[in-house]
């Protein structure tokens, strides 16, 4: 019965989801009508490290600038409305558009067959090309093929990533933003970055340590993304773009940001190729293809969590011993460590360790940086668990040990810690299981673990539910045995069996 109940719960959740998404598609009028009624065009983009597309003005950080910002203003003006940017992580723009978070995507979205299968795309507004960026002191690497066997960076789910994956043979690192990959390039963690020319022009060209390598290649178009059913909106956008091209507004905007080149003359020659509708992919039915990929990510998650937890358990013990028993200045240090680590986000700690430490000459690879970051973060929490455990042991235990003549270390080693151990097993296990899930955060420092694999596969298949269920099942299969093991350990250490 229980089994049936759970199963039907999942099925009904899925049904509700399908029903709601179907209904909104059926009854929603064309978004163009809604935009005009609202008086606002909502455009989705990622302003984080988003120069020169859209980014906060360095002089006035509360204000956005960028060539796409100016383009959005011009487009909205043509439609007779105002433009408002909606911040969204770049590699999640398409799902967010389909969820209805905003009306259009205007953020360096390439006019590729893959994108045109998922959403409708306008005529192009910019011709980009790929550019290899290297350190000034590196020799060669002028062509894509030269990058084989080298550590190379690319922005997550870009054409650059796809080109490198198709070629194969490189040690490819995927970055969540543009700034991070160039930082790693300068920190000598990687030898080259392949990126869209506008990004390279903005970030890499002015940098004295970096230089362009070879000529731009693999040109392509940026287009505006809209939902497939919004045909009127698409038509209005195409028309507006044509006008902006003819009256040189586009050229003016691109010149303002130093992005105009002769390639832009080819914009008007664009002819869309016909793409077939995308077939819905059921990753659940094709699990033999997807599960191994997910499991490879899970292996990284396990390695990372186990090593980081080992570091946390040991460092936490040192911290608590220092905090409770060391001379006063050291005690304060241990306490300050715990408070600072607990009071700041793990994400920022990871960024500081991975991108900050190279500034003072400490260069950790992503795996090591992940272990150190997670481990030192959890150490603070473990030391608090231990402290609670140690302080739960009655004062009389210490007195009895002292009365026998034990010194402080003997008391701790033979009387206090063995009893505290049992008390702290449940909270430490809890942290270990939390670590499995928290470890997904290391994707920001280019680690590809289970959640990242899920994200990448979901983005290419659009089967968020099937992959999501598989991924959740893997996480559960990892954490449940951990809690069973802890149960058993706790029982085997129990001494008040009556």
């Amino acid at each position, binding site marked *: 019965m229980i089994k049936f109940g759970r199963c039907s719960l999942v099925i009904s959740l899925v049904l509700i989801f399908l029903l709601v998404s179907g209904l909104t598609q059926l009854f929603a009028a064309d978004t163009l009508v809604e935009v005009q009624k609202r008086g606002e065009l909502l455009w989705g983009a990622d302003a984080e490290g988003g120069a020169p597309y859209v980014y906060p003005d360095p002089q006035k950080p509360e204000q956005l600038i960028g060539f796409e910002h100016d383009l959005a203003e011009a487009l909205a003006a043509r439609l007779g409305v105002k433009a408002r940017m909606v911040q969204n992580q770049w590699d999640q723009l398409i799902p967010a558009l389909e969820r209805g978070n905003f009306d259009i995507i205007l953020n360096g979205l390439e006019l590729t067959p893959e994108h045109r299968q998922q959403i409708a795309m306008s005529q192009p507004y910019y011709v980009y090309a790929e550019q290899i960026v290297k350190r000034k002191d590196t020799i060669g690497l002028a062509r894509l093929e030269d990058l084989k066997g080298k550590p190379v960076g690319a922005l997550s789910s870009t054409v650059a990533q796809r080109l490198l994956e198709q070629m194969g043979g490189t040690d490819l690192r995927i970055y969540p933003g543009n700034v991070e990959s160039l930082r790693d390039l300068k920190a000598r963690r990687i030898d080259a970055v392949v990126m869209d020319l506008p990004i390279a022009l903005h970030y890499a060209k002015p940098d004295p340590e970096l230089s362009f390598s070879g000529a731009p290649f693999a040109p392509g178009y940026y287009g505006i993304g809209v939902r497939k059913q919004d045909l009127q909106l698409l038509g209005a956008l195409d028309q507006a773009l044509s006008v902006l091209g003819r009256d040189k507004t586009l050229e003016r905007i691109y010149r303002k940001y130093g992005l105009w080149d002769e390639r832009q003359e080819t914009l008007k020659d664009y002819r869309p190729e016909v793409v077939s509708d995308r077939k819905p992919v059921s990753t659940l039915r094709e699990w033999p293809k997807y599960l191994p990929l997910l499991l490879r990510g899970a292996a990284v998650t396990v390695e990372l969590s186990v090593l980081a937890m080992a570091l946390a358990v040991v460092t936490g013990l040192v911290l608590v011993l220092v905090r409770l028993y060391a001379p006063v200045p050291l005690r304060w240090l241990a306490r300050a460590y715990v408070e600072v680590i607990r009071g700041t986000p793990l994400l920022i700690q990871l960024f500081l360790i991975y991108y900050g430490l190279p500034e003072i000459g400490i260069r950790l690879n992503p795996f090591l940086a992940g272990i150190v970051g997670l481990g030192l973060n959890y150490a603070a929490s473990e030391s608090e668990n231990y402290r609670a455990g140690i302080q739960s042991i*009655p004062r*009389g*235990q210490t*007195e*009895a*040990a*002292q*009365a*026998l*003549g*034990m*010194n402080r270390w*003997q008391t701790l080693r*033979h*009387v206090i810690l*063995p*009893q505290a151990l*049992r008390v702290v097993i449940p909270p430490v296990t809890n942290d270990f299981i939390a670590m499995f899930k928290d470890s997904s955060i290391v994707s920001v420092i280019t680690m590809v673990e289970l959640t990242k694999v899920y994200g990448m596969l979901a983005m290419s298949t659009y089967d968020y539910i099937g992959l999501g269920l598989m991924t959740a099942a893997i996480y559960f299969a990892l954490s449940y045995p951990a809690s069973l093991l802890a149960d058993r350990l706790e029982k085997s250490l129990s*001494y*008040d*069996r*009556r």
Partner: protein
Amino acid sequence: MIVVENLVKSYQSNRVLHGIDHMQQRGEAVVLIGPSGCGKSTFLRCLNQLELPDAGRITIGEVTITAGQPARIAEEKDQQRQLRLRAGMVFQSFNLFPHLTVLDNVTSGPRIVKAMSKEDAETLGRELLGKVGLDNKSEAYPGQLSGGQQQRVAIARALAMQPEVMLFDEPTSALDPELREEVLKVMRSLVEDGMTMIVVTHEMQFAREVADRVLFFDAGRIAEQGPPEQVFSNPQHQRTREFLSRVTTR
């Protein structure tokens, strides 16, 4: 054997012991009585340095500790340990180590502090458990024993360090009346063996039977002392009379 001179102890501004002087012969059993809060437990805990006195001097056997004098830390700690090795302590709440078996509780002191071999310590431990009548419980855990049994294990644990003095801090107060006798019996046998003892207790009958001398504590001072028949039958001090009439009519 035991010499205490001018022992003073305060908690913040509250003076608990007002310069106690006490001398005790080897083999003498002394019982401390008095109302709660009179300082008798504090006095006992100062003797093995669980409380650090503010002033005064304590000598047990050949070891002397002078309180309140700035001393080199390491040497002071060593003196403290030497003193504790000579004084075994039994607590009101037993304070057995719950994660160790009865035998391991008894052998923990010799093995950890004196680095005695496992075999020697266990031989000694079994002998002492036999003495307190618990040789059949050596593999049990403290949680599986009654209060009276636990306190007997605690006595064996203290004896395992072969102390020169045994200090008892209300050893039967946490026990149900029917379990007290088994503990008192063990204590009586220790007196018969000639152990030097200081016992803080409310068991007047026990004091009357086994004490060589009774000390009546009142407000941080020894108000009266003498052989039990004298203190119990013919108390000299007004406060002693009041206290005895309260506890014996109960």
